[in-house]
């Protein structure tokens, strides 16, 4: 009896001490992790992507973009369309720009593939509805997603007019597969939502998005995917939008998509 009481007091005492010390320790540790952005980090007032529709017709370009992105971010390839997870993928023209269709639209045009991804909206509906601020818009325009705060309510998927968000209906990787993952990008568990992040983790290291880098290495594909700052009028994206006709998906909704398609 006495023994167990003593043990209890020991455990309780230690726990109290632990809890009391915990707060400053956690503070100190978290402080040591708060680092300044690297000097080589890429910065912008408003990041944007300009996609050339003509280039989207090329299989190698679409494949390279999706492959590079999904490898960079440990995106699982799930065959079942119901449970699919995708960040950048091909959709046909008719479904990407449904309001552009008319009775006489050529079947060939309807079926032309288009690369689609998160539009990183200026007024993102997903951010508006998220109950935990697990998704938010950064000052440079990137709509971020914290997969470790997300509770998996899927309200953001309900609110997104572009179908850009995926939910992990099941565990994305088995323990074995997880060990073999090459990328440093955080892995996640089942039950959370994920999407394109404009490669925020690469921008912080001064590198362009993975899809842009992969596509650029292909022959005659320098301008297939162009990424840059629309706040800078001399940037390549600003110039392209000034000189060529760019359209956006569902602009009438007022979400302000920051992925532009050159006709």
């Amino acid at each position: 009896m006495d023994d167990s009481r003593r043990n209890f007091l020991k455990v309780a005492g230690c726990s109290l001490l632990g809890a009391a010390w915990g707060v400053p320790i956690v503070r100190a540790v978290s402080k040591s992790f708060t680092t300044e952005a690297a000097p080589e980090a890429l910065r912008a007032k408003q990041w944007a992507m300009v996609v050339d529709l003509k280039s989207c017709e090329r299989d190698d370009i679409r494949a390279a973009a999706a492959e590079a992105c999904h490898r960079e971010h440990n995106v699982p390839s799930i065959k079942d369309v119901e449970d699919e997870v995708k960040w950048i993928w091909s959709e046909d023209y008719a479904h990407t720009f449904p309001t552009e269709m008319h009775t006489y639209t050529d079947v060939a045009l309807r079926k032309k593939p288009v690369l689609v991804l998160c539009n990183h909206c200026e007024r993102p509906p997903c951010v508006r509805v998220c109950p935990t601020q697990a998704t938010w818009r950064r000052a440079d325009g990137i709509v971020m997603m914290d997969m470790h705060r997300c509770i998996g309510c899927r309200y953001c998927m309900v609110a997104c007019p572009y179908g850009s968000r995926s939910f992990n209906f099941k565990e994305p990787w088995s323990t074995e597969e997880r060990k073999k993952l090459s990328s440093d990008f955080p892995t996640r568990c089942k039950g959370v939502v994920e999407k394109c992040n404009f490669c925020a983790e690469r921008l912080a290291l001064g590198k362009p998005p993975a899809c842009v880098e992969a596509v650029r290495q292909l022959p005659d594909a320098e301008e297939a995917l162009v990424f840059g700052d629309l706040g800078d009028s001399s940037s390549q994206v600003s110039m392209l939008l000034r000189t060529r006709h760019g359209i956006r998906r569902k602009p009438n909704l007022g979400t302000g998509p920051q992925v532009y398609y050159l006709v």
Partner: protein
Amino acid sequence: MLENALRGGKRYWSLLALWSALIVVGVVAYLVQYNRGLTVTGLSRDVPWGFYIAQLTFLVGVAASAVMVVLPYYLHNFKAFGKMVILGEFLAISAVVMCMLFVFVDMGQPMRVLNVVLHPTLNSLMFWDLTVLSGYLLLNLVIAWVTFGAERKSIAPPKWIKPIIILSIPWAVSIHTVTAFLYSGLEARPFWMTAILAPRFLASAFASGPSLLIILALIVRRYTKFDPGKEAIQALAKIVTYAMTVNIFFVMVEMFTGLYSDIPEHTHHFQYLFFGLHGKNALVPWMWTSQLLALTAAVLLMFPGVRRNEGFLPVICLAVIVAIWIEKGLGMVVTGFIPSPMEKVIEYNPTLLEGLITVGGYGIGFFILTVLYKIAISIREKLEQ
């Protein structure tokens, strides 16, 4: 008061045993879902909300409808509801608990659900929905406990409870309004973007909730010595009649705007709902059943003779409940996603496991309801001796 829940006849215990069995089934099914993820449901990338959120929508209505007995009794001093009011409040309590359960089982990461409280987000309607639901639960618990406790001792309830009761009236309206706003403010979903959604939700709530209350009151009267009163039941039947008529009117108003304007984004959803789209028509038979039941029930209720017949009345009430359960549960929620914003028709079929988890949720609700009603009945029986 609670001791009454621990003493009871064979009928009471077998009822609790039945609900417990449903709960066990639901819990086991939920453990499977918890382990394997929401892949066990029929939900998909294109239809991210389904059966669970449909139950939430329906049950928020049942919860809110307690106001239909509280308001006449406390604001208009409608004495006939004196005995009914506790049944209404207890029904509201169990309905709110079920609402919360159905939100919980829908979460991908249920263990993180308190993040909603940890990072309160005022611009999210989901945050407000959970806030008003918890508040409503608390209000009803306090009100039922205090007023019924006073009644048991045959004394007047304390004065301070009156403002709380009055607060509970707009609060009941708020829970269903916020639930409608969960849907109606999304540019991605034109089917839900209608100002009539919240009023329509309230109308259907005031039809389905009191219908359930009538059935429960008739059961209570038949099997116990507690009689909630013929006049009270008839008054509820009148409420159901008005609410159901208004609900049908609101649905027609909604359809007029959606269909007469002839904007494809709106008409496609109605087309899917009533006739099917691109050869996909899973909801069509359900929707027609619902409309047929709703119209028949509304017409029959308009005849005082039919309404007064207590043999017909519960059957009509059941028709109202089923009609509204289909209409604002599956019909309203699922059709918002079909066709998708990319104009694809990807259907949703709930799985057996989803059904079993839902059964478990209702099991918990009915368990709570049975225990609460047992307490109310035992005390009433003692008072009436």
